[in-house]
């Protein structure tokens, strides 16, 4: 049998999926053990037990000077920025995507412009944003928006254009106006794509969030990581990185479920 036709059974599937994770863990433990054997005060690769211990302290012990748990304050600050930035980007993507996709005039006006903007590396704009908008929250959110919105707009415009012309014509023969076609035919059909676009956009959004937090912040997951970097505090950095990964995973899962529940028509197998 050809390898392209060999499909692993359920137990093998689970084993294969878990294998890279387990190997990474083993490699880390081996490396950590080797370094600690040579120098018990080594900070670069703390033992897994040390990491767990430190993680427990991080999430429960209030900071001595500030009086609250930094971990949760950092989490809240980062999620707040991320949510605001992504929400603004999604709203822009939906509005401009629909307008560009449906109206030839708007397409003529904005299509090349959005394409050009989306080619600018957003991090190159970061200094301009910090100079123009100051070092507060606005510039961080703006960086997330500029980093994610252009690609999302292009995606949504493309999805709108891909709505079969037959449907647009049919709606016109049923007496629909441009506005009605946009709001009742196109909008609901691109909503699942918007969720898809947000899921894809979250990766870059985290990148720009952390980049913005490293420049200037008083709290935030990215800020904390770059702050403790000075002391090579891997016992803080590693739990934070794992936490960011978990958060990203949870958000992605929540979006996927929302899409499945709210837009059943888009998934033929989920009839009900």
């Amino acid at each position: 049998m050809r390898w392209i036709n060999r499909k692993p059974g359920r137990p093998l599937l689970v084993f294969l999926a878990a294998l890279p994770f387990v190997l990474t863990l083993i490699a880390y433990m081996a490396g950590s053990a080797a370094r600690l054997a040579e120098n018990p005060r080594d900070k670069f690769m703390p033992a897994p037990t040390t990491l767990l211990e430190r993680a427990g302290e991080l999430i429960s012990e209030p900071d001595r000077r500030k009086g609250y748990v930094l971990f949760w304050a950092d989490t809240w600050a980062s999620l707040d920025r991320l949510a605001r930035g992504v929400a603004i980007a999604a709203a822009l993507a939906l509005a401009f995507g629909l307008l560009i996709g449906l109206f030839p005039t708007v397409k003529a006006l904005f299509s090349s412009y959005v394409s050009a903007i989306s080619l600018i590396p957003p991090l190159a704009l970061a200094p301009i944003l910090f100079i123009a908008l100051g070092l507060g929250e606005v510039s961080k959110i703006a960086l997330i928006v500029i980093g994610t919105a252009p690609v999302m707009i292009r995606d949504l415009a493309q999805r709108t254009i891909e709505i079969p012309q037959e449907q647009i014509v049919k709606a016109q023969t049923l007496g629909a106006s441009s506005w009605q076609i946009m709001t009742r035919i196109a909008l609901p059909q691109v909503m699942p794509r918007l969720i898809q676009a947000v899921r894809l956009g979250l990766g870059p959004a985290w990148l720009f969030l952390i980049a913005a937090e490293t420049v200037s912040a008083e709290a935030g997951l990215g800020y904390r990581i770059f702050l403790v970097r000075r002391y090579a505090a891997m016992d803080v950095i590693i739990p934070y990185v794992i936490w960011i990964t978990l958060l990203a995973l949870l958000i992605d899962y929540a979006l996927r479920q929302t899409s499945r529940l709210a837009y059943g028509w888009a998934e033929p197998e989920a009839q009900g």
Partner: protein
Amino acid sequence: MNAHATPTATLSTSVLTPAAQPVITVRNLTKSYGGNRILERVNLDIEEGAFISVVGASGCGKSTFLRMLLAQELPTSGQIMLDGAPIPHEPGPDRGVVFQRYSVFPHLTVRQNVMIATEFGASPIWSRLFGKAKRKLREEADATLERIGLAHMANAWPSALSGGMQQRLAIAQALAKRPRVLLLDEPFGALDPGTRVSMHQFLLELWRETGMTVFMVSHDLSEAFTLGTRVLVFDKPRWDPHDPTAYGATITYDFKLDDKKQEAIGELSFGPPEHQ
């Protein structure tokens, strides 16, 4: 309307006799894409209540012609008149349409697909009715679904419907605005033969009941002759072997089938009632 209806003994002759004023008049129509001539010198009068079938080889321009009746595309030259006035340059509620695919809205339930035409008309901003008006519209929609045999699927998404059911829904939806003419672009092309036969019966009964004018493009000769009161054939009468795109197609045959129609309908109605 009931797919199991026993055949009526007498046919109303009014729908089969051409009326004086044509619904659609086409004069000297041509269509080219660049130097590629698709249609030329097309002249046609479509009489009220006719069932016109159009056949022709693929690429003969029959679907292009339908899209021009719809004003989804505009002619290169010539005129199309609807009730004596030039047709608007965009699709509108005076010309209903059913395509082979993508004819119903996938994000609306079966019932919503029937309701939406009325909602477009009644609510310019929200395209939705509320309260009492909505309940009334729902009841009307359910009555329509009952007639077309889709009452049990009212809350399903169109993707759960069979091809034949989707096309029945598309036809019912297209008739909601009572168009002057119903345009069908190979509406049964993607259906299996059994479903096709029952769809023919469904369409004929609707046509007889409403007396509407139908213009159907088909690639199936027997379908065209079974359903139509008039069959048009599109073909290229002139052919330049050195430049095949130099000349376009036109109407080369125009069969009027009013006499045979009675027999054809009779045969169909006595056939076994089929459901898909």
